[in-house]
């Protein structure tokens, strides 16, 4: 797949299937956390983290640990940066700041919504909010991060990497 082709096809349903595979199904870690992509559009991305007792930070309340929210935000931030450049190019987190607004509620899933608010040729600046998945949709954490673009390594959507995608429609 040439650069140009990838670029124009980034939001193509086929690419989205590959993205789901890469970020959820075939990834050794994300399979474990059961991250789900909710939506990806240009410079925006959102994902869900289902509640899991293994990720609890405080036994007395059952609220999940800040670290796993950081993990979620870093992942969505990376996906958001890729959507901004419309390319599944490798990138690296330069720095990431988390503000924990309040403890999460036991049993509720976490939603992460991240936007890329500035893009240069070498960096993507993103910010996002993590919410509880409930009617009140209360914010539990804020995140701001900078990603360095085009770091070493091959494109993540190289042909053949997810060879069984064709049959997954």
């Amino acid at each position, binding site marked *: 797949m040439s650069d140009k082709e990838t670029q124009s096809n980034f939001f193509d349903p086929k690419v989205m299937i590959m993205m789901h595979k890469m970020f959820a199904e075939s990834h050794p870690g994300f399979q474990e956390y059961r991250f789900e992509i909710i939506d990806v559009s240009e410079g925006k991305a959102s994902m869900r983290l289902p509640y899991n007792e293994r*990720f609890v930070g405080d036994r007395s309340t059952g609220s999940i*640990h800040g670290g796993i929210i950081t*993990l979620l935000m870093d992942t969505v931030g990376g996906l958001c940066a890729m959507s901004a450049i419309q390319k599944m190019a490798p990138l690296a987190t330069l*720095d990431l*700041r988390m503000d924990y607004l309040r403890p999460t509620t036991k049993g509720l899933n976490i939603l992460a919504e991240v936007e890329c608010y500035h893009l240069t040729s070498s960096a993507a600046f993103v910010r996002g909010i993590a919410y509880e998945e409930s009617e009140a949709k209360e914010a539990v954490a804020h995140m701001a991060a900078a990603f360095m673009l085009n770091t070493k390594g091959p494109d993540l959507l190289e042909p053949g990497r997810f060879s069984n995608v064709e049959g997954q429609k």
Partner: protein
Amino acid sequence: MSYFNFLLDEKNAKGIVSSIPYAEYLNISLQQTINGEIIFHLPFAEKNIGNPVIRALHGGILASFLECSATLMIIGTVSHDHLPKCVNQTTEYLSSAKDVDTYAKVKMNRVGRRVIHTMTTCWQEEGKSIVNAHARFFVGGTHA
């Protein structure tokens, strides 16, 4: 300083880690060096990989490791009864992490009555920091 005011044995090291289920899940352990310093250890696991192409550890896992280390350090030194609550954390990534074991140590820059400022650094090769984190914790009271 990364020191406890008591000698750490295997049993109380396990006890400290067990106060955070997520730290147990990550398989974090802590040990005391011969000069009394506390070192945190994150063993390599396949699920900690972020970029499967270059086999680098996920930045979010490292941020989690550093946050857990700082929390466990506070539990071991000053806040035995109350779980410290992280207010915020800034993580800076100096270089990418390989698919090997990672170690961390925590410096408590200021221990106040309500707030503790920590600086945590982690490495895979002796003398080469790969990630640093600065965090603020509330201790003793409530944070809601």
